[in-house]
């Protein structure tokens, strides 16, 4: 038997190492497409502030990138099948921390790590709820937390002026070298990409696989000797850190933010963005956040304020359409288009994170398919 094998050609022994003609051409096509796609994306990201000058100031883009961070933080919780409505409160805490640190004269490079660390106690507090509550119950608990934070803490400290000192409040400043909207955009985009890469790496690692298993069946996950609590806390802390940093950047963008901004209802809007992007997807969340954050601002600018408030209607329509016809969101639509371009056959049927219901064997079986696909998602 071994003699026969030795006589075979290398391509016969290991088809993966030496692919046949059509497969080799497919891989070549794929690598060419990926290189071209990466080049196009890099050019687009780098030149965006200048490309969009005709539609309005780069402030809209800066705002969109920050919303992208917030939506990413909401989407990350989709990994454990939960959704949070406390994300706006976490943003607010980031803003308060950056205000305090800037008043204490701390440099930017110290501020951001401290902001990340400061998010941990709040995340652990929310994590305590997550350990005992699931689904809508957890969402209600986070909503109550967000409501309390806005009405008590933010209203007392930020008030209508948006700073600690009432009418003498000192605005939060941008870091040195990033004062302009264009330069600040590059800082924000760099941070967003770094967050996205970290999330993507986590999702592709053994932690991501474990989180998928946890989402599918917490009981089975526990039986196998894993701690659901530790994994849940990790995910909530990751999500909280992203939201808190987004809040810090939001403070730098706006200068002064009144407490009214941090209404819990806003979290519902951001959750809608995450659903449209594809709950649990890193790339989908970033694209949906940046697009839904920036486009309405540009519309406001182009229409000279006549289209204010239309964005919610538009997002509602998109989110409803996504839920009905493309439960995987933009991420799934993008994946389907990409597979067609690559010529690698039709993608498998889509199953949303929210369709996974452990009480329903059919949905759980479908979820297993999702887990496989999620591994390849960016």
């Amino acid at each position, binding site marked *: 038997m071994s003699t026969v094998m030795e006589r075979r050609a290398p391509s016969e022994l290991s088809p993966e190492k030496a692919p046949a003609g059509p497969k080799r051409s497919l891989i070549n096509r794929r690598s060419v497409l990926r290189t071209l796609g990466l080049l196009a994306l890099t050019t687009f990201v780098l030149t965006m502030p200048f490309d969009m000058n005709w539609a309005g100031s780069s402030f809209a883009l800066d705002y969109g990138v920050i919303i992208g961070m917030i939506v990413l933080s909401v989407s990350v919780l989709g990994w454990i099948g939960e959704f949070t409505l406390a994300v706006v409160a976490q943003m607010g805490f980031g803003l308060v921390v950056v205000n305090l640190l800037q008043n204490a004269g701390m440099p930017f490079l110290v501020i951001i790590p401290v902001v990340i660390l400061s998010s941990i106690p709040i995340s652990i507090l929310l994590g305590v*709820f997550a350990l*005992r*509550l*699931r*689904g*809508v*119950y957890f*969402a*209600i*608990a986070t*909503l*109550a*937390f967000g*409501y*309390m934070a806005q*009405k*008590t*803490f933010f*209203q*007392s400290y930020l008030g209508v002026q948006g700073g600690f000192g009432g009418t003498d409040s000192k605005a939060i400043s941008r870091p040195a070298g990033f004062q302009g909207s264009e330069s600040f955009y590059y800082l924000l985009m760099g941070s967003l990409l770094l967050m996205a890469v970290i999330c993507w790496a986590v999702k592709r690692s053994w932690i991501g696989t474990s989180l998928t298993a946890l989402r599918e069946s917490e009981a089975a996950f526990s039986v196998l000797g894993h701690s659901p609590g530790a994994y849940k806390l990790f995910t909530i802390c990751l999500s909280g850190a992203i939201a808190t940093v987004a809040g810090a950047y939001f403070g730098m963008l706006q200068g002064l933010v009144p407490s009214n901004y941090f*209404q*819990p*209802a806003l979290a*519902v*809007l951001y*959750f*809608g963005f995450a*659903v449209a992007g594809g709950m649990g997807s890193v790339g989908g969340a970033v694209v949906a956040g940046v697009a839904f954050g920036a486009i309405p601002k540009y519309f406001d600018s182009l229409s000279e304020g006549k289209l*204010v*408030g*239309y*964005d*919610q*209607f*538009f*997002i*509602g*329509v998109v*989110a*409803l359409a*996504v*839920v*009905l016809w493309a*439960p995987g969101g933009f991420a799934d639509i993008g994946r389907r288009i990409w597979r067609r371009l690559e010529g690698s056959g039709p993608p498998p049927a889509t199953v*949303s994170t*929210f*369709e*996974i*219901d452990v*009480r*329903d064997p059919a*949905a759980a079986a479908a979820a297993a398919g999702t887990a496989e696909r999620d591994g390849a998602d960016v």
Partner: protein
Amino acid sequence: MTKLIQTLIIGLEYGCVYSLIAMGMVLVYRTTGVLNIAHGGIGVLAGFIAWDLNTLRGWPYFPAIGAGILVAVVAGLLFERFVVRKLAAPALATVATLALFLLLQGLVFVVPWWGNTWGQVFNSPFANRQVAIPGADYSVSWDQLILFGNVLAFMALLYFVLRRTRVGLAMRAVSDDPTAARLMGIRQKLVAPVVWGLAFGLSGLTTMLLAPILLLDNTSLTAFTLKALTVTFVGGLISLPLTVAGAMLLSMLDVSTQLYMPNAKGLSDAWPFIILIVVLVARFARGTKALEDTAVAPA
């Protein structure tokens, strides 16, 4: 004495509002497993339609509010038929209600003549009528009395429907055990539209009762809905009597803190969160498992 009566009346008033909203959400959750986040949004739509017909088009008050509630009921039926029924899992339908909430919130801005940059005044025909409370320097408006009366009437109606009618029996059966209900020949496709129509209609009714007391705008109604959502937690999204009790408790605590402890800044707004913590601790102390484990299986 006056302060106490004032606390009781205002507390009762807001308690009624929270109860109406929370009962609508619990009703839907119990029978379908879907948390209807769009509850407040539907009310806003119904309210603006009624205001439009009454104020801008000169319709009489009662036909206008009737039309608003009818639109809400029809919206409920359509939403159930074309959205909820198409979605496999209740969690996905919950996300759909969230999308509907955003859509309806935005709709108020999209219709140019509704101009929701400020609250609209939507007075009832009883706007300036009041009833003095004997022995206290305080009076209650007719609108407040109508609100109390409606809440009591709705509770009685709901009790009657759930306990004494075949539809109510079917709703309870689906809520308790959907599989057994199906085996007994109860058609979920007939029960679900009734529930959604009833809940959306209830949301419309709540807005009609609230609008003469407050202004008609989408932010205050949404805030009521969000606060009522925490009230549903008291009854575990299952029990209607406990939900009403939670609503009354929250509003009484809220109002009495504002009236008796004006210096306790933020405490009145922290009550939903405090109640939530207390409910959780009480459940742990009783050794109850995770809340969702005790919940009914959604249909």
